[in-house]
């Protein structure tokens, strides 16, 4: 079976022309990339933090209003050996007409307007195997479920059901330079019908504003330490988001209330999460974006926590060179993680990327990685 999967993925590498565009014929679309990524720690012992190469294939088959999408990786990871091999990402079938869009299968579902922060966007969990030192789209873990969406010109309604939940992938193996330590993780919820996740989102897209309301009966997908063991418990999220373009700016806001959220130590309490963001499209290919996210928990010692992000991007040389810095700032504890990168398109297919991940923290969420600053290089061929 594995060999068959590898063969199918290799077939994806060779682009085939889409067939005729008439409604009744089968249309095939193929895309993907081959990339190789290597990162070395800039502090002693200057060891390799990452060394991996992969092939990504994405195939869409469509006939009339129905189709299927499959996305998979073939990976060689020289450091995390158990991450090598075939990795199915998304695999879903869909039906889509003028107003209805139904997707069933393994898929990434994104909600909200926050950039790289999770308030209402809590359906697809995160893969923290290499913490945040991966492309953000690689960090999202697909979930197996059903998504039903009905859309009109200026609004859409979406319902989701996830029979078996997926949870965060945390690095607890000591050989992983990104390990958070040997934390025992409790068992995941039983695969029973009553444990399914379900929810919905109602979104409006108007000429001067976008806004949404969302609700989800879910789980804390990142394990919470209770008596030394990471545990999962039920919770309900009620949330909303808004985007307002104002001249060269877009103001974004997002709020979510987690009802009955599992807190460290085992207590259950509500938490309020709020985010405000500002994007500035400054012209001359400059983009600046800043966000502040605040979490307030009804009980406990650390009731208030804050996290900020700052992104500055400049495109140069007719968009062949992109310079970017993206920082997570732990406002509560004063820590920072900043990814600085330069992405140069050597030609239409091949990009060379070099960058530096800086960690600086004496306490808080980035402390465990305070010696993980690294220099990285990546080569990516897209087809």
């Amino acid at each position: 079976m594995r060999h068959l999967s590898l063969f199918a993925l290799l077939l994806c590498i060779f682009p085939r022309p889409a067939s005729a565009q008439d409604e009744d014929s089968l249309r095939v679309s193929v895309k993907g990339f081959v990339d190789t990524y290597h990162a070395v720690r800039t502090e002693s012992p200057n060891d390799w933090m990452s060394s991996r190469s992969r092939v990504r294939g994405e195939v869409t088959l469509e006939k009339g209003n129905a189709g299927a999408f499959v996305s998979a990786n073939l990976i060689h990871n020289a450091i995390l050996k158990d991450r090598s091999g075939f990795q199915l990402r998304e695999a879903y079938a869909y039906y889509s007409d003028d107003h209805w869009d139904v997707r069933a299968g393994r898929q990434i579902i994104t909600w909200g307007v926050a950039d790289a922060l999770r308030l209402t966007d809590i359906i697809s969990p995160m893969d923290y195997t290499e913490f945040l030192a991966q492309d953000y789209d690689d960090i999202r873990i697909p979930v197996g479920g059903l998504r039903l969406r009905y859309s009109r010109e200026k609004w859409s309604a979406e319902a989701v059901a996830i029979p078996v939940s997926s949870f965060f992938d945390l690095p607890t193996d000591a050989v992983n330079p990104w390990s958070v330590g040997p934390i025992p993780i409790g068992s995941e919820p039983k695969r029973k019908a009553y444990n399914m996740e379900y929810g919905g989102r109602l979104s409006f897209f108007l000429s001067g504003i976008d806004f949404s309301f969302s609700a989800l009966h879910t789980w804390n997908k990142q394990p919470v330490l209770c008596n030394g063991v990471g545990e999962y418990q039920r919770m309900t999220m009620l949330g909303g988001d808004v985007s307002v373009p104002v001249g060269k700016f877009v103001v974004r806001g997002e709020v979510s209330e987690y009802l009955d959220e599992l807190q460290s130590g085992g207590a259950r309490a509500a938490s309020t999460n709020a985010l405000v963001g500002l994007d500035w499209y400054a012209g001359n290919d400059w983009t600046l974006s800043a966000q502040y996210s605040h979490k307030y928990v009804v009980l406990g010692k650390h009731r208030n926590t804050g996290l900020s992000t700052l992104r500055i991007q400049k495109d140069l040389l007719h968009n062949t060179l992109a310079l970017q810095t993206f920082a997570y700032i732990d406002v509560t504890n004063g820590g920072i993680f900043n990814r600085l990168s330069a992405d140069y398109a050597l030609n239409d297919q091949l990009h060379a990327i070099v960058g530096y991940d800086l960690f600086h923290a004496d306490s808080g969420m980035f402390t465990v990685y305070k010696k993980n600053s690294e220099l990285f290089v990546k080569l990516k061929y897209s087809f």
Partner: protein
Amino acid sequence: MAAFLLAASEMSGQQLTGRQVIQKVKDRPDGDTRYGEMELTLKKKNGSTRQRKVTSWAMDEGKDTKKMMFFTYPGDVKGTGFLTWDYDEIGKEDAKWLYLPAMKKTRRISGSSSKTDYFMGTDFTYDDMGQRHVDEDTHMLLREESRNGHKCWVVESVPVDKHEIYSRKVSWIRQDCLIADHVEYYDKLNKLHRVLTIQEVKKIQGFWTILKMEMKNVQTEHSTTIVVKNTQYDVKVDKALFTVAKLEKGL
């Protein structure tokens, strides 16, 4: 259509104002809906080239226009989509959304910022690619003359907003098809900056259509050629195509 051309022919015999000429260009019939595939070739001074390919749909709703556009090449941007609701009313910001397939996410983006930025690294600005409102410039008819065998109106347009990237542009508008043959853009120092040359025009389904054009930055000698393929007018598309849901669904 014949009546329109007759009217255009009659008008050419009269002395029009610059604004009337540009309004006629803007009002040139182009169907209620449109489909097209564009190949953009960026050429550096040293001769090396880069390519972008785009597929787009457009639909008129009164004086407003809705557009959906997807990149199909190169691979790293394939599937990236833009949805735009262009409003004719001066001062009303266009509504724009950007879909990034790698992030599986749609962003609301600024409707006013990118007009003077260059479109995806080409020599065309977003304004050049879109519908500039007639009254965003003041127009003056300079003269009538023949260019490349076509009788043209020569119109000078000066932007009202002094933050535009050009101080003035001079357009040679063909009187037979109401399409520019040649446009010169001057920078803030009034030096020639960019030159647009329309290289191929053809009537498709009764509508005059640009098939090939080149924008050259004469100061850097970088140029962009756009070849338009498979243009179709009055295609059967529902306005449901121009929604965020369809943007996320992709091609």
